[in-house]
């Protein structure tokens, strides 16, 4: 056993540009994208043929045949075939959770290096057999005699030919994630204009980062796409104001296709290591993963918003690390919806909410908005569910590294099922 723990270093990252659903990656599978992303990371850090301690990644929308998605991607990549891998899945928290898992093993001395990642395609999504049809076919398969088989086949009805398509909806409420977010937005009285302003800032920040070459060593083009397909550098509050609401109802509906993330395809990966491993390989250390926390809320019966779990996770993380919400140089709050970011920030500012829901004596307070998502986030880049965590970890690590040593950043990611994953990075 390691006598004490150490902080895992973030060496760097790689992702492919994110594509809009049925866009540039319409014909790419999760395995294609994850393999290309790993290969881009290998090329950037000269890891050809090398064994990395572990590769941990996952996808939210996953075919049954992809039960070993990450290991299969490793085998198809230029990494040594002796690199172990496993899949994880925690909805939109998958990518960050994967990084936390790798970092924890490094912290314990169980790994010297590891890659955390995630991938998702909404274009090449899995479709399941109709449930009735599936039962009929299972019966056919289990039948022993011809007569039994024929009798089982006789159960087939035309209606069973309709497949089950995955929906971006919560199984327990039947509501789309956007509908849930719209309820929260209404509760917190999040206005249309502030959502559109946040969205514009995300696009402008991301475009500026691309323009100054910030993503040169974070992104590798794929299938002809060199920048995120969803990015609109010239968008403005006026342009966004013209969009009709798509979530929520009536006068109070504020959430549009502009200030909500679109369905997206993409993949990301982050290289983590011990400081010693990085030094041995002459590789940089951009930042360290200091600590992480998850939380979940009862959005079904508990009267809490589906995407509000990070609001609960952050104070726990802050308390454990003796920090206040203001002790950060950068904040990366995943923009599932502009309203989600704004509701979370508002919740931390609310004395009643902080007291009643979070059990705090005083509110966490407000943050300096100039430090929020400074290189753009999901509203501009898009949000391939499991790939978002890796995008954010690598982007924040480089941001902290550029700002100099001793800088601190907070990551907050909300996830389906009423969950949240948050983490602290430090340069």
């Amino acid at each position, binding site marked *: 056993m390691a006598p004490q723990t150490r902080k895992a270093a973030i060496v760097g990252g790689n992702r492919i540009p994110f594509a809009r659903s049925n866009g540039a990656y319409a014909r790419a599978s999760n395995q294609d994208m994850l393999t*290309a992303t790993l*290969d*881009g990371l*290998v*090329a*950037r*850090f*000269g890891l*050809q*043929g090398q064994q990395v301690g572990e590769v941990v990644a996952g996808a939210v929308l996953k075919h049954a045949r992809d039960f070993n998605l990450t290991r299969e991607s490793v085998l198809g990549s*230029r990494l040594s075939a002796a690199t172990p891998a496993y899949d994880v899945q925690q909805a939109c928290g998958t990518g960050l959770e994967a990084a936390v898992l790798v970092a924890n093993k490094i912290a314990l001395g169980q790994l010297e290096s590891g890659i955390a990642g995630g991938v998702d395609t909404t274009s090449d999504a899995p479709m399941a057999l109709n449930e009735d049809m599936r039962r009929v076919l299972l019966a056919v398969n289990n039948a022993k005699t011809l007569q039994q088989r024929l009798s089982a086949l006789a159960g087939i009805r035309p209606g069973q030919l309709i497949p089950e398509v995955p929906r971006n909806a919560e199984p327990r409420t039947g509501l789309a994630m956007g509908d849930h977010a719209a309820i929260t937005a209404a509760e917190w009285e999040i206005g249309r204009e502030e959502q559109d302003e946040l969205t514009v800032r995300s696009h402008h920040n991301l475009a500026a980062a691309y323009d100054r*070459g910030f*993503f*040169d*060593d974070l*992104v*590798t*083009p*794929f*299938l002809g796409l*060199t920048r995120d397909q969803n990015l609109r550098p010239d968008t403005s509050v006026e342009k966004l104001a013209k969009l009709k609401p798509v979530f929520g109802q009536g006068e109070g509906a504020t959430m549009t296709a502009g200030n909500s993330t679109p369905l997206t395809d993409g993949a990301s990966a982050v290289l983590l290591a011990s400081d010693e491993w990085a030094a041995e390989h*002459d*590789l*940089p250390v951009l930042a360290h993963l200091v600590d992480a926390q998850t939380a979940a809320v009862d959005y079904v019966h508990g009267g809490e918003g589906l995407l509000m779990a990070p609001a609960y996770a952050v104070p726990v993380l802050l308390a454990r690390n003796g920090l206040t919400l203001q002790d950060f140089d950068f904040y990366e709050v995943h923009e599932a919806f502009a309203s989600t970011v704004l509701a979370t920030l508002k919740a931390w500012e609310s004395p009643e909410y902080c007291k009643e829901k979070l059990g705090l004596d005083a509110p966490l307070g407000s943050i300096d908005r100039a430090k929020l998502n400074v290189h753009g986030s999901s509203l501009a880049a898009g949000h391939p569910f499991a790939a978002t965590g890796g995008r954010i970890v690598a982007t924040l690590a480089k941001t902290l590294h550029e700002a100099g040593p001793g800088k601190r950043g907070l990551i907050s990611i909300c996830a389906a099922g009423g969950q949240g994953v948050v983490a602290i990075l430090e340069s």
Partner: protein
Amino acid sequence: MSDWYRDFANSGVGTTITKQLGLPRPAELRRYEPGQPLLPGAAVVGSAGEGRLRDELTRLLKDDGVTVVSPVTVDGGTDGERLAAVLLDATGLTGPTDLAAAHDFLAPAVKRLAPSGRVLVLADPPAGTSSPAQAAARQALEGLVRSLAKELRSGSTANLVHVPLGAEASLASPLRFFLSGRSAYVDGQVLAVTTAELPDAADAEQPLAGKVAVVTGAARGIGAAIARVLARDGAHVVAVDVPAAGEQLAQVANEVGGTAVALDITGDDAGPRLAAQLVARHGGVDVVVHNAGITRDKLLVNMDAARWNSVMAVNLQAQLDITQALLDTEGALKPDARVVSVSSQSGIAGNRGQTNYAASKAGVIGMVRSWAPEFAERGATINAVAPGFIVTEMTAKMPLGTREVGSRLNSLQQGGLPVDVAETIAWLAQPGSAGVNGQVVRVCGQSLLGA
């Protein structure tokens, strides 16, 4: 990208037809492969006048396992063996009358030259004597070699190397290059060597083992070929290209076991950024290949500022800036570094519609020559390679007629391959090439343009 005409001309019926019609008969060139002997057959070494290199040449050849036959055997024609190489030591020339000896030796020897044979003439530089008669004789060799190169067929080449007194040790590396398949598309050229401190002999199969080489424009075409050849010769390749070419760049880097760096070399901080990464990640760089280049063709009168400026920025200014940044950054450029710049035949001969491109590529030659003395002082070298018609994705898009004619306008009657340029660069990058500095080596099959 196969040369359909060459394949046809070398087929049974094609041989008959092209011979009868007097059409060009391009040969399959002998190209280098690891493990290959230096020459596929015997070599003969002769001299014109009392030269000082003949014994050294014979020793070098024998060290490389080459059978050296005497000129008498050639003259007498007692055995029918074809010769793989004919070497003439012309360092003994005192005046034009001695040239007769060159003819006497070369004529029967060249007659027995095997396909993809090599004629190599070694002489003193014309400028190195105060005697007009001796300078005349030395200069005369240039006319002799260039003409002979045009007479040779079946993929054979003829080249001239100037070896000043005291620079004899620098000869070994060019000698191996010109005799080997690495120089397949280098023909009718004059190379000058200088005195230099030479390292101990490197592993012939891995002359760049342990070296770090940065190649710009490495995502495709000639740049990718350079990356492959440098890696084959043992170097760790840092492959650089614009961020938009990142996908292909990563593939090249992974193929050669190198490192991909997405970087716009025309960016303000491109040089310092690259230098910093080379220091931090690789402990400095041994070989720098400035290959990245673009074309934006238009007749001068129709050319806008954007076309002019972008070509200059990528093809010339970036080479200057990056080299300067490497020189300025502590520990970036190794003392015995090798810098090779890709120029172009257009920069030597000019080309209609390419005033910007030709200017940038001629500028590269000026840069290399200007920096050469400073590089020599630190034990480094800087040279230029000027490709002629090289078969790439770019030439594949040319109209068939233009392409076919363009590719035949040289003594080897065919276009070169990216690997031919890469082999020349890899040779200049070798530690043993310390005596080759400030040179412009054309890889053009002795093109008719700007010869």
